[in-house]
């Protein structure tokens, strides 16, 4: 959907008169080759947003301010209709719209009901839909994830929340053997339209177990799709797309992005689960990133632009499968690739991406692919050590400078 949205261009995309039929858009989301190359429109989390009133977002604010730079003129976005909300509210809005649309959609997890979710993504939903549709479960990740799968096999469309993504390691067997493989082992008879989501990534001094980079763990499970949201716009769109998908989808949210603010359309929209998002078109180097690192990259991009570089930034969004079309087109233009991720260096998303690019676009590369991943260490508690564990904007600037020499 995003691609179509982009293809339409900024002026029409946010026109209030342009009423989107979500179903139509969903099913017509087969990519249009010509459309994708057209002007790129980005709904941005721009620097003008004021985070000051929200102390929880303080750290995020430092990182995010002015993070999204784009060559496209976004004045249309700010003047047209739409509403401004935080990323967690966007997720909630997507969830609520889908629960309104389809009574089979239900939520289960620890503290999703009365408490409203550890990051308030399900706030107020239990009051509206009742305790059975927004089910507070005992602390039993393996069992309630399995329960979600059993419910999905028999007609419901559950969204299972991991209170912290790391806790889903306790449900790894269910996610792998049942979520991922059961459609296949049942000869295609049973589908598992489940969404597994929750806060993940390296937060602010949460310690090793609560600062997991799980993408690498989940990526080799067959039969599962993985997406990572990074803006309120795509958070809502991906949430809705994931709920509607017949495939099991893991939706990665980042603890430091929940308070990101953005204006999103009032009209219903959904994103395409398989498509990457062009964040900033450029000519000199392709920077592939996702989730929180998008903002480190955009911070670096600002410096790079001042230094005379013109980087192209792509939020890959779909961590499995990769959108090789968007990625490939960019590489064919820039001939240089920098990957910036928060995932582990060994066996991470970056490693898989490197392999996929080498395999498919080697001939277009003028320089070896550079991959900046977080360090292969348990996420340290100490602020200084934690900062050195994940990629910082300065490293990105240096890497691009080297790459473009």
């Amino acid at each position: 959907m995003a691609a179509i949205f982009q293809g339409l261009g900024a002026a029409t995309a946010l026109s209030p008169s342009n009423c989107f039929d979500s179903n139509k858009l969903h099913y017509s989301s087969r990519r249009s080759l010509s459309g994708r190359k057209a002007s790129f429109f980005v709904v941005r989390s721009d620097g003008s947003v004021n985070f000051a009133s929200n102390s929880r977002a303080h750290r995020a604010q430092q990182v995010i301010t002015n993070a999204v730079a784009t060559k496209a003129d976004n004045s249309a976005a700010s003047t047209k209709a739409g509403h401004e909300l935080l990323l967690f509210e966007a997720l909630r809005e997507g969830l609520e719209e889908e629960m309104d649309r389809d009574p089979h959609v239900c939520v289960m997890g620890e503290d999703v009901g009365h408490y409203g979710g550890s990051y308030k993504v399900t706030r107020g939903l239990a009051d509206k839909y009742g305790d059975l549709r927004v089910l507070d479960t005992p602390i039993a990740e393996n069992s309630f994830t399995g329960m979600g799968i059993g419910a999905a096999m028999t007609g419901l469309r559950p969204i299972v929340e991991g209170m912290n993504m790391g806790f889903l390691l306790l449900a790894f067997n269910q996610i792998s053997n049942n979520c991922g493989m059961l459609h296949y082992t049942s000869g295609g008879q049973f589908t598992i339209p489940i969404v597994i989501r929750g806060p993940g990534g390296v937060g602010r001094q949460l310690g090793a177990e609560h600062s997991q980079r799980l993408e690498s763990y989940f990526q080799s499970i067959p039969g599962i799709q993985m997406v990572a949201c990074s803006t309120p716009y795509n958070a809502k769109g991906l949430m809705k797309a994931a709920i509607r998908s017949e495939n099991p989808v893991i939706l990665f949210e980042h603890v430091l992005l929940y308070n990101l603010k953005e204006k999103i359309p009032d009209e219903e929209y959904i994103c395409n689960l398989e498509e990457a998002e062009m964040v900033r078109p450029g000519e000199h180097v392709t920077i592939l990133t996702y989730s929180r690192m998008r903002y480190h990259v955009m911070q670096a991009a600002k410096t790079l632009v001042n230094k005379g570089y013109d980087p192209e930034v792509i939020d890959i969004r779909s961590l499995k499968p990769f959108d090789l079309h968007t990625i490939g087109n960019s590489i064919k233009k820039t001939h240089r690739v920098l990957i910036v991720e928060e995932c582990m260096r060994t066996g991470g998303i970056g490693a898989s991406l490197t392999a996929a690019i080498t395999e498919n676009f080697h001939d277009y590369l003028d320089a070896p692919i550079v991959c900046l991943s977080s360090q292969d260490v348990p996420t340290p508690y100490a602020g200084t050590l934690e900062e050195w564990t994940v990629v910082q904007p300065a490293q990105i600037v240096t890497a691009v400078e080297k790459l473009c020499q």
Partner: protein
Amino acid sequence: MSSSTFFSSSSINTIKSSCFTTENHSSIIPTSSFLGSTHKLRFNPLTANSPTRFIKNRQTHIVAVSDVKQKQLKSTPFVGNLLITKEEGLELYEDMILGRTFEDMCAQMYYRGKMFGFVHLYNGQEAVSTGFIKLLKQQDCVVSTYRDHVHALSKGVPAREVMSELFGKTTGCVRGQGGSMHMFSKEHNLIGGFAFIGEGIPIATGTAFTSKYNRDVLKQADCDHVTLAFFGDGTCNNGQFFECLNMAALWKLPIVFVVENNLWAIGMSHERATSDPEIWKKGPAFGMPGVHVDGMDVLKVREVAKEAVERARRGDGPTLIECETYRFRGHSLADPDELRDPSEKAHYAARDPITALKKYMIENKLANEGELKAIEKKIDELVEEAVEFADASPHPDRSQLLQNVFADPKGFGIGPDGRYRCEDPKFTQGTAHV
């Protein structure tokens, strides 16, 4: 009290009395002595004085035929003192013969190189599958384990489809993609064979949750579907068992937890693995009835099952039932079965559930030898036909390779050319690189 009170007509009484079974076993008369394992913990000299309580303390609270008979006499005098009608008896007999004959044939075919991998046979435990599953409606769900062939058959999956699956053929019930431990049938609501210990229990809890959701949220008042979760004694030491007992009781889900306690988790004796070997006692601990039944007697199993299934159907919540049974073969066909004591095997072989039912039916003039022989012959032919069908069926074609990985094949993503990979002709040929 105890198990017999489980049949109390008032559901409230049932819960209460069953909750207190542990305090009230004075009135129960053990009618059978299940010895369980004859192996005791081998204590080293340092712990020579430790209490060897394992087998002594096993109090066998088994539903006695006499209990059931008395209840039957009171409530349904018109069937005399018989537990089943002729038709029911013949159906049970046929299902058990099918299970036994099918599994024996599997062993033959395995040794003949027609099927591969781990094949776990059900011989000896037929009374459990038949006693429970033959009570169900098609919409009711069955969740099984790696030892799932016979559960599939009892639930109505055609023998030829199960055999063909074991042969790895495309006509198998899951197109050759699952194998012995992964039998599924959406049509028959066989929710699956789950090959890891315990992982099926949460799934079963989920299907029971759907029943409740359909009734309470979607207002499908007539939705009274029940789920049966089968698993073994070994699983009862796994966290998922306890977690799901808790959730099922908490939300009063329409589920029956059926423990097929065959006393052995491969080579680990139940007595050596479990601090309190009476699994049924764990039901009351979670606020649900726990029942211990002779799993070698299909009629006793059926009576207990009937009450538990009806209870779940009424919306009165889950039940835990421990069926004490025995497998006549090794854990799988790869198991040399050298550990179990021959006298233990002989003890249970003498209590063959099929022989017992046959004896009951003939003694009670529910059927004559000829009728039962006819069933045996019919099943022999059916199983022969299943083998022929499986043998003649084609192996999966290459084009099948990439199917069913994703329900929506767009999950394979977008290729460099901008098209979804699943639109590539090589994808449907199974030769695409994904």
